[in-house]
């Protein structure tokens, strides 16, 4: 993995001078390079927009363009595996222009609002050096304003964006839409080998139509070139936590194949283990976990085609807090009222994972083949197995529920360009089969979907002053459910569209407007569930006649990025027709364990609206080295039928971080080689009480507001100028050991959240290069 600053430098040379300056006799020449390699890049493709011509640099990376007129020219240099490098040059004399391409795996070292002119105002969060490579996807995402986490205990977290999650937040990895029974709030996110991670507020119709709350895209990548000398690089990391006495070891290794050019391989994996965590005042029993994940990637590139094969397997065994699985309403009410859990659940620390617990395995195989930059085939297969174990303390856990989900997905796409318009046409087919063992909480089913979509984008309207992205998609489902009481067939279909416009305003402000329609069919649990919901002491009843949900959303965002600061503010609204949620009926059902309130899945129209703000600034001159980051997230909801808010919406929050770093932290200047660098920072997070909620539907009132203080210290050691440093990171989270309950933790009724945690992370990158010629 190559971490670099994306630096573009233009070297103007006046080497070639002609006495006579003909109107159309200017010469532009130069060399094409790749980042980090003094050897020029051969056969890079250069396109001159004004002339609509394309040529390539020669085998020594040189190019020469003659007979240019006295005007502006825009040149785009590109190469497979690299990001295009665009320059504009005004030819009023002979000039020189060098291109430096950085590989597609170029990772920016800061949180960046992706303000590219193609109009996507998704927020890009890449390997932020202020967080760790070893963090999983959900933890990285919660740093973004507008996003947060939904937790079930400590071991299961999933991302939330603008109040929406689970079936309403689409996750894509390696080109495949992740299918892991995401309807379950207590089902986490099982990803390995994440690569670049982006969160977009707008649905991306290339992958799916159900991104009502947005799309999370994990894009693993490797760097592939024509080199025939073997070179490898990678990263080893390790982290330990004081709270829970947990540890993780993992690594990534990328390599080319040596003798065979244009092939790259990557392998990655990690194992981790943790024991019981503790709140400031007591242990929280049975919250340990034991996870491992591994995977690999095989990339092949050629002038005419590129192909990527990706495989990952994630396996998790997650303890569920023993005091949270209460299968009797009287006990449940008692637990909610108690200040802290019964002593039997706050016993001494151990690593044992007893019942209740979850065991999950998720396997992903994804293949992408692209021809001539025009035709693309994307196929994937996923298998997800979830087991929920019951069992009281001291008993051997028994499997109570097992769900097996197999999903096959395929897309064929056609890319084309006409003037400045890029268009994508695609068709999609999906087949999904679900089976259960032990208990029919949701039935067996076979779902099939067929869809078609068209996306167009123009990034260069009026010289990059405007950008537009439009998309439309239509899908139809044929779903067959094989329940024990008989077969049910349902058909769902709908259109989806998305429209984004970006306008560059004065003073580096950018205005982005989005509007779109997404939809999702009801999930199997919403249609069919019958029975006690794991640990919630309620009986949930599905409704087989539920209709699809359709959402209309709009967002206006203004952002500005200028030198040392960038900020953004947005306002959004999401009107969801036939929003599905679980509502108490007021009735109880008698079970052998007592009377349980019965909840029924119903539909209503719901509105989600809110605003996010963030501002980051790097100080200069006397305060040079200091940086500040401020965020505010605000959201409210409304159930149109009852005129009351919904429940389960993340609380509003304000975050402020101050950092101070040494001069060359995260920099790769060629001039100064500084071996040691560091950064220290502190952050305050204030979570407001979730006041905008419907108390009649809540099991217990939302917890009060609270302030969390976190600190971090990063120490970097560099061995060579252009290589990644060794990172040592020390974080102390909840440094004040504040006891608090998190409204977005489904187990907030039973125990406080984790107290102080000291985390130490070590990241060691390495390069193994075997070159014939010295650099």
């Amino acid at each position: 993995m190559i971490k670099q600053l994306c630096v573009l430098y233009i070297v103007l040379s006046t080497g070639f001078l002609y006495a006579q300056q003909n109107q159309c006799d200017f010469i532009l020449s130069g060399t094409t390079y790749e980042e980090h390699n003094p050897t020029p890049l051969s056969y890079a493709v250069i396109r001159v927009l004004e002339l609509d011509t394309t040529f390539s640099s020669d085998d020594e990376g040189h190019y020469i363009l003659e007979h240019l007129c006295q005007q502006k020219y825009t040149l785009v240099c590109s190469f497979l595996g690299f990001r295009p490098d665009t320059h504009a040059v005004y030819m009023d004399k002979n000039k020189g222009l060098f291109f430096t391409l950085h590989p597609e795996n170029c990772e920016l070292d800061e949180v960046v609002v992706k303000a590219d002119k193609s109009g996507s105002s998704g927020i890009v969060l890449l390997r932020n050096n202020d967080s760790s490579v070893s963090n999983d996807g959900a933890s990285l995402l919660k740093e973004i304003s507008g996003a947060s986490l939904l937790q079930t205990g400590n071991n299961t977290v999933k991302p939330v964006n603008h109040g929406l999650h689970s079936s309403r937040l689409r996750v894509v990895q390696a080109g495949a839409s992740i299918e892991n029974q995401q309807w379950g709030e207590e089902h986490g996110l099982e990803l390995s080998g994440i690569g670049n991670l982006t969160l977009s507020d707008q649905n991306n119709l290339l992958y799916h139509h159900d991104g009502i709350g947005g799309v999370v895209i994990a894009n693993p990548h490797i760097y592939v070139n024509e080199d025939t000398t073997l070179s490898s690089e990678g990263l080893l990391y390790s982290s330990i936590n004081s709270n829970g006495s947990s540890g993780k070891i993992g690594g990534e290794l990328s390599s080319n194949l040596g003798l065979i050019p244009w092939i790259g391989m990557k392998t990655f994996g990690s194992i981790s283990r943790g024991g019981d965590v503790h709140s400031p005042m007591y242990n929280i029993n049975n919250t340990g976990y034991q996870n491992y994940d591994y995977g690999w990637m095989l990339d092949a590139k050629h002038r005419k085609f590129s192909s990527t094969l990706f495989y990952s397997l994630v396996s998790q065994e997650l303890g569920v807090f023993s005091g949270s699985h209460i299968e009797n309403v009287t006990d449940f009410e008692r637990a909610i009222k108690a200040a802290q859990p019964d002593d039997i659940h706050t016993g001494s620390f151990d690593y044992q994972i007893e019942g209740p617990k979850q065991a999950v395995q998720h396997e992903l195989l994804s293949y992408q083949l692209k021809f001539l930059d025009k035709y693309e085939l994307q196929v994937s297969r996923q298998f997800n197995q979830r087991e929920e174990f019951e069992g009281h303390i001291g008993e051997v856990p028994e499997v109570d529920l097992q769900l097996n989900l197999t999903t096959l997905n395929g897309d064929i796409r056609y890319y084309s360009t006409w003037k400045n318009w890029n268009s994508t046409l695609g068709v999609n087919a999906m087949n999904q089969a679900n089976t259960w063992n032990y208990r029919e909480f949701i039935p067996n089913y076979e779902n099939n979907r067929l869809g078609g979509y068209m996306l167009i984008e123009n990034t260069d309207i009026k010289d990059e002053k405007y950008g537009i992205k439009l998309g439309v998609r239509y899908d139809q489902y044929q779903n067959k459910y094989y329940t024990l009481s008989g077969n049910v067939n349902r058909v769902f279909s709908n259109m989806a569209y998305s429209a984004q416009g970006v306008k560059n305003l004065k003073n580096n402000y950018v205005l982005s407007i989005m509007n779109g329609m997404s939809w999702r069919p009801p999930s199997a649990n919403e249609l069919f569930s019958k029975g006690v919901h794991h640990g919630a002491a309620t009986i949930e009843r599905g409704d087989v006649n539920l209709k699809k949900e359709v959402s209309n959303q709009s967002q206006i965002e203004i952002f500005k990025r200028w030198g040392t600061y960038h900020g953004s503010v947005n306002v959004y609204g999401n009107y969801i027709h036939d929003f599905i949620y679980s509502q108490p009926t007021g009735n109880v059902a008698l079970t052998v364990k007592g009377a349980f309130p019965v909840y029924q899945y119903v539909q209503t129209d719901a509105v989600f609206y809110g605003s996010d703000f963030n501002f980051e600034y790097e100080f200069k001159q006397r305060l040079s080295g200091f940086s500040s980051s401020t965020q505010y997230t605000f959201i409210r909801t409304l159930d149109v039928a009852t005129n009351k808010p919904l429940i389960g919406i993340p609380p509003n929050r304000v975050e402020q971080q101050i950092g101070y770093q040494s001069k060359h932290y995260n920099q790769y200047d060629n001039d100064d080689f500084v071996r040691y660098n560091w950064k220290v920072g502190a952050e305050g997070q204030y979570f407001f009480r979730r006041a905008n909620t419907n108390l009649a539907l809540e099991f217990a009132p939302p917890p009060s507001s609270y302030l969390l203080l976190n600190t971090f210290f990063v120490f970097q050691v560099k061995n060579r100028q252009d290589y990644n440093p060794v990172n040592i990171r020390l974080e102390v989270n909840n440094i004040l050991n504040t006891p608090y309950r998190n409204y977005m933790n489904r187990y907030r009724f039973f125990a406080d959240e984790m107290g102080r945690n000291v985390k130490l992370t070590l990241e060691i990158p390495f390069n193994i290069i075997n070159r014939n010629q010295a650099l």
Partner: protein
Amino acid sequence: MKKLSIYFVTAALLLGACKKDENDPQNPTPTNEEELITTVTLHFYEKGNVDNHVMGSFRDVDGAGGNAATIDTIILDTNTIYTASIELLDESGTDVVDITTEVKEESDEHIFCYEPSTSEINITITDSDGTYPLGVETEWTTGNTASGSVKVTLKHQPNGQKDGSCSSGETDVEVDFPVVIQ
């Protein structure tokens, strides 16, 4: 071509290694291999007149959710002493499983509690685990005509939690039987 063959070979290797679902979606597995208590039955024998046998059951054969449970009303004579015993069954599968024996085997981790709603019923537990009462065997003494209910609770109290009361532990059974004394 060399390159292509590498892909195919690797792909083939992997597909063989993929995890698979053993079940067929179109044939759902018959229910429940886990143990459920679906049936709670109280048997009453008049002390000294065993021909007078009364019983009442709570039954929820398909488990929580699904079809509604049924509860019998227990009808007892006035001013009579009954020897009673409780029986727990799992009737959800093809074979009936007797759960009561398990509770008796783990008597030091279980306790039954009986709470009548009327003073015309007096219940005492007659068995024990050696230290604390168990509650599988009880003696019921009825008074005059009345109607009310008796709440029967089974608590699972592992790890030495058991203290003779029903205030702690996990609830495995909580059934309110309507009782009529006539």
